């Protein structure tokens, strides 16, 4: 899969990228909300792994914009965050995301979790 990873923490970027590359996927990493939108509009990705707390635009705002744009409306979005309160999860899902992965995640099962969400979403 061609995965767009939106994450501003460099260490988490590294760990996540390595975990998914080890599982055979191609990863493009961006570190702020505005960059996510630009990349999503410019290229084709199979899924967006989207953090919430990011500079310039947070994950919720990014999701809203992507879902309002016909060019990016169909990009599957999975929220990827350490925030796990029900309100946050529900907000993410109500904005159009198909799944929510709570950090910290297991590097060995992350790719499977993404696959599973894509299948059922």
């Amino acid at each position, binding site marked *: 899969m061609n995965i767009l990873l939106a994450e501003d*923490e460099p260490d988490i970027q590294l760990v996540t990228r390595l975990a998914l590359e080890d599982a055979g996927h191609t990863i493009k990493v961006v570190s702020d909300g505005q960059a996510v939108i630009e990349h999503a509009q410019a290229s084709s990705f199979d899924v967006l792994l989207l953090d919430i707390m990011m500079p310039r635009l947070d994950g919720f705002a990014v999701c809203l914009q992507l879902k309002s744009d016909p060019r990016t409306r169909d990009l599957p979005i999975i929220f990827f965050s350490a925030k796990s309160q029900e309100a946050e999860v529900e907000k993410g899902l109500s904005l159009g995301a198909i799944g929510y992965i709570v950090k910290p995640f297991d*590097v060995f099962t992350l790719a499977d979790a993404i696959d599973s969400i894509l299948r059922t979403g």
Partner: protein
Amino acid sequence: MNNPSTIPNQLQCPSLSPIDGSAATLAYTQKLLDAVNAMTSVALQYHRQPERFMEEMISCLIKIMNFQAGALFISEKQPGALCLAAVATAPGQKPTTEQSALWRAPLLDHTQKLAQQTIDQGQAFIITADLIPPHLKPIGAALQNQAADRLISMPLLVEQRPIGVVQTVVPIQHSFAQTEVLAMQLLAGQIAVTIERLWSFMALRAEQERTRAVVDATNDAILMLDATRRVIMINRRAKFFFGLAERDVWGKEYHQLYILLTLILDEPQRFTQWFLPLLESETKRDMEEFQALLPEPRLLQCFTAPVVGHDEQYLGRILIFRDITREREVERMKNDFISIVSHELRTPLTSIRGSLQLVLGRKSMETKPQSLTLPPRSLELLNVSLSNTERLIRLINDILDISKIEQGRIQLQPDTLDPANVCQAACNEVAAFATTRGITVQIETPEELPSICADRDRTVQILINLISNAIKFSESGQQVLLSAQPFDKFVRFSVRDWGRGIAPEDQQRIFQKFQQLDSSTTRNAGGTGLGLAICKALVEEHGGRIWLEDAMPHGTVFHFTLPLAVDHADQADIPRQLKRQTLVLVVDDDPHVRPLLARLLEKHGFHVASAANGVEALEFVRRKQPDLILLDIKMPDIDGFEVLRRLKHMNHIHPIPVVILTANDLGEITRTRALRLGAFVYLEKPIASEHLISTIEQVLDQVENPAITPG
């Protein structure tokens, strides 16, 4: 010899003779009636000044009877304990020392004794200067000094019960006829009744003031409407809360009060929709929250209940407003704190755990292009780091869970589950842990096990917790047995170990937070002390029970029950949490109406999603099929009719029922058109909450059971 403590009979008042019908007697009777009216007026005038009241009473009597002076003795707090309440002299005369001397020391002692005897014997007495018992001789001398020769002492009786005595001095030249005795008895009786009424009034007023003080002292705003729906009480706090003066609300009917509420509350219409049905009920109690804008923004919790008298008569309805702004703020800060802290802790833990996992790899991970070869010591230390990282993560998760449990925010996602399946899932999760400890986990379930109604993730969480504990407290080579079997209307899960068991004194506290047995063992085992508390809360949230069975010294058995999955007919037995969470999509462009409807629906156990327009609604439906749509008609981009049309063309397994909820000014044509386009029901705003909920429930019932016709 006469007993000095009694008065000879001949000095007692002569018996009364009936009044004849002569003009003189009639005139005298009229005079008496005027006197009674005068006393009543005095009572009304001076009822708030007891001392003045007493003085006026005795003055009234003296004036009417043309006596020289008089006094009132009242039996207050203790029965029979007489106190001098008032002394008066004839009007127009200056009070002289001689006239009032009878009721001053040293003569007071004697007149008081006379009054006591009057009370004790319950009869009136006339004391004359020439015929006076020895112990009252000083009175005789005083009478002579006043040119009076008689002292009358008469009891004040209320229904034959003495409450005091009136004493009057009659001048020598005054012929005291029997009719005057009758008159005096009548007036004394009137004084007695009036005094009794004064006491009752004072007691009632004191009680009212006490009650009022209590009501005013409370921190809550209180209003009361009587049975005719008029405001009859508003406390001090209410005036402060709403910036109102008593005159603004007292006596006002609810519809007048509503006008004031439109200025004060953010959603006065919602308040009315909530309160009016309750106002029509003589039994219902309810609580709701409203945002007040004046005199300053605040969140109010409003409680209402009927007020019923001691004879079960409906007196009215009370409204109590409590400012919960600060409480909610603290709750929000606490939630924010927990959210922020957990986020801040989890973020670095993500990097730590991830990098350790990548470095250590996993045995089965054969896709790694190049495995890392680490010296054994480094490997051991890295594993220590990883296991403690996992422990920290578990602690954070447990703390979050406990926080949710304590705030009642655990939301179950119930489903029909196969108990054997969840047992297997839990065992799979703990398999690696069991292997490292040399423990074998066995599952024993009968072939036919009834399904349970439970949240899958939470059920697996409970089982993992119990099995992990059993593993921790077992020795290598031992076994842990997981079993499930039917248990009345439940399935009972059991986790058995053959470890060292739990001492009886520890069995009570084991389900409490942060309670661990033998900290050295549990520290080694990586426990947080929250696991069993969480298990207990989750089991009980499902309506089940958890307990442990002592099998010392050969281990422990933990049991817990989860309810069976039942058919529709028995749905009412399941706690509301476990009813399938019906998802309602609320579609309305009004940003005030959407949250209002969402709150109402959530309060009645529905899961709610919102859309601000038709496009959003259809987008949502494409992703996730709601169980029902509550749809407005007039919306900016595509209207409700277009939404109905497009819904028809969507491929859903089951059609989604749509309930129209729209403004009431659109007419019959709109209603007909909506129903023709497939709407189930057409409702108009404003609508009573109960009507909306019952309509939605009826529609859902009909969809699930097409044989049922909605009422």
